[in-house]
């Protein structure tokens, strides 16, 4: 006589394990769940002003994400993730001065880029009386890029489970083998490694609020340049540090919760950034939530960023016209609708992202002509059993 698990149980089964202070012992998920999310990501076309010749179209990407979670015996859980994305479009190739001296972009190959990426990862976690520990291995493949990674993390609860300390480690080993390398005189085969360590501390403040503070340190080494750009030469090592703070606050009268996340980031390419993420979860009925989201991001430029490529500069000197290394600000907003029907739930999300040097919190010496604007639509479904 196996009864279907109740709605409230299913809603809890995946979230409660991520929270400190809910039960004396950390509990593995009590039900299995299968999730799928399909998204379309579309960048706005560039203008003729930004790109005097050739294609104006940028990336259009379809993303499929799968996740399977299952309890494994009394104390363990199994996690399997698989992603697949198909992309088409073009990306900036090199940057020159236009007729008025302002930087203009030349896009990669007239025929555009067609690529796909597949990724799979598998992980397991042990849940003990005072915390949990687990790890995962993953593999990602594109026709010009391969990544193998491994991660581990452990959490321990203190202070009647009101305080949680989490330590996580990860390492990734990547290979880069650009397509059409001979024709365009690109590198043939390069490697890149990244190792990362993060420590976070969460504290329950009162019955409706909790706070988390985290520090992460990442070291990268190897080929960190963009092989598809005509003139792109970056240092072969990079150290990144990120300091993140999160607050969760439930407003009883409003029957809604505020999620607020702030991150400060800096690296030794010279980039510093602020990220602020705000989401409001409004419960409308027992089975319907509306979630507006707002995000602000701003970064400084890398020390070697230039918005007009200098082809006379030797490759031994760092230089890049990658818009991602320029100083800019970005504002994005979105809306999610989450519906729960017993063991099923569905989430529909729309998001709009606009990057612009005018939104920058930092001074912009060399604005990039290639900043991104995109629109993203997602539909996710989750089934628990």
């Amino acid at each position, binding site marked *: 006589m196996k*009864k279907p698990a*109740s*709605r*409230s*149980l299913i809603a*809890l*089964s995946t979230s*409660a394990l991520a929270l400190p202070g*809910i*039960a*004396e*012992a950390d*509990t593995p998920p*009590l039900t299995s769940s299968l999730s799928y999310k399909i998204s379309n990501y579309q960048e706005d076309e560039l203008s003729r002003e930004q790109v005097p010749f050739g294609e104006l179209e940028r990336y259009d990407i379809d993303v499929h994400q799968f996740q399977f979670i299952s309890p494994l015996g*009394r*104390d363990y859980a199994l996690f399997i993730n698989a992603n697949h994305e198909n992309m088409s479009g073009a990306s900036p190739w090199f940057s020159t001065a236009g007729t008025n001296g302002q930087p203009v972009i030349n896009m990669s190959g007239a025929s555009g880029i067609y690529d796909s990426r597949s990724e799979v990862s598998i992980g397991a976690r042990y849940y003990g*009386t005072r915390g949990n520990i687990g790890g995962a291995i993953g593999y990602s493949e594109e026709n010009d890029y391969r990544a193998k990674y491994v991660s581990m993390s452990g959490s321990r609860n203190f202070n*009647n*489970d009101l305080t949680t300390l989490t330590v996580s480690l990860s390492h990734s080993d990547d290979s880069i083998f650009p397509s059409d390398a001979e024709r365009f005189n690109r590198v043939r085969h390069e490697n890149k490694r990244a190792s990362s360590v993060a420590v976070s501390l969460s504290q329950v403040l*009162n019955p409706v609020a909790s706070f988390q503070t985290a520090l992460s340190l990442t070291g990268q080494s190897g080929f960190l340049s963009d092989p598809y750009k005509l003139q792109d030469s970056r240092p072969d090592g990079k150290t990144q540090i990120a300091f993140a703070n999160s607050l969760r606050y439930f407003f009883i009268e409003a029957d809604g919760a505020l999620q607020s996340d702030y991150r400060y980031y800096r690296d030794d390419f010279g980039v510093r950034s602020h990220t602020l993420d705000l989401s409001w979860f409004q419960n409308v009925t*027992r089975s319907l939530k509306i979630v507006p989201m707002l995000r602000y991001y701003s970064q400084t430029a890398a020390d070697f960023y230039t918005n007009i490529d200098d082809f006379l500069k030797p490759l031994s000197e760092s230089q890049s016209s990658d818009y991602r290394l320029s100083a800019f600000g970005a504002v994005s907003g979105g809306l999610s609708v989450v519906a729960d029907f017993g063991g099923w739930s569905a989430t529909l999300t729309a998001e709009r992202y606009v990057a612009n040097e005018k939104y920058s919190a930092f001074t912009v010496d060399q604005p990039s002509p290639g900043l991104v604007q995109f629109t993203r639509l997602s539909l996710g479904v989750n089934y628990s059993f």
Partner: protein
Amino acid sequence: MMNKGFMMIGLGLVTSTLVGIAHAVEEGDPAPDFALPSIYADQPAIALADMPGKTVYVDFWASWCAPCLTSLPLYNDLYNKYRDQGLEVVAINVDNPIEDGLDFLLDTPLDFLIPSDPEGDMATQFSVIGMPSSYLIGPDGEVKLVHMGFRPTDMEMIEAAIVANLPD
């Protein structure tokens, strides 16, 4: 608003002192005497004093506690198996608001007694240190087993403890 915050911190300090002194109910202790209203408005109050000579399994649960919700239907089976031999199951609900607990019970009817303790008065007396927590009280009024957390495989051990402590 500010005052409320300070009061909460103050209250927290006071409670922490009190909880620090009050000691958690352990095996071998006499069971705290409880008396609480039923979660159902039309049913009588529920008190340990009204169950002399019985084996009482007391469980603290809430609708937001996933392992609690897994355990209740299993306790219901256990109750129906041993009720004729003198077993009472008392599942104290600590939901606040009470409606959250009642909502769960609509989907999942349970046969045993369900008192409501929205302010956590009994939970404080038992010094519950995690959810769910359950206490097996023998016919002599002594706590025979304290069990914290719940996974379905725990049922075997709980059933064995109950059988060993049923009234003669």
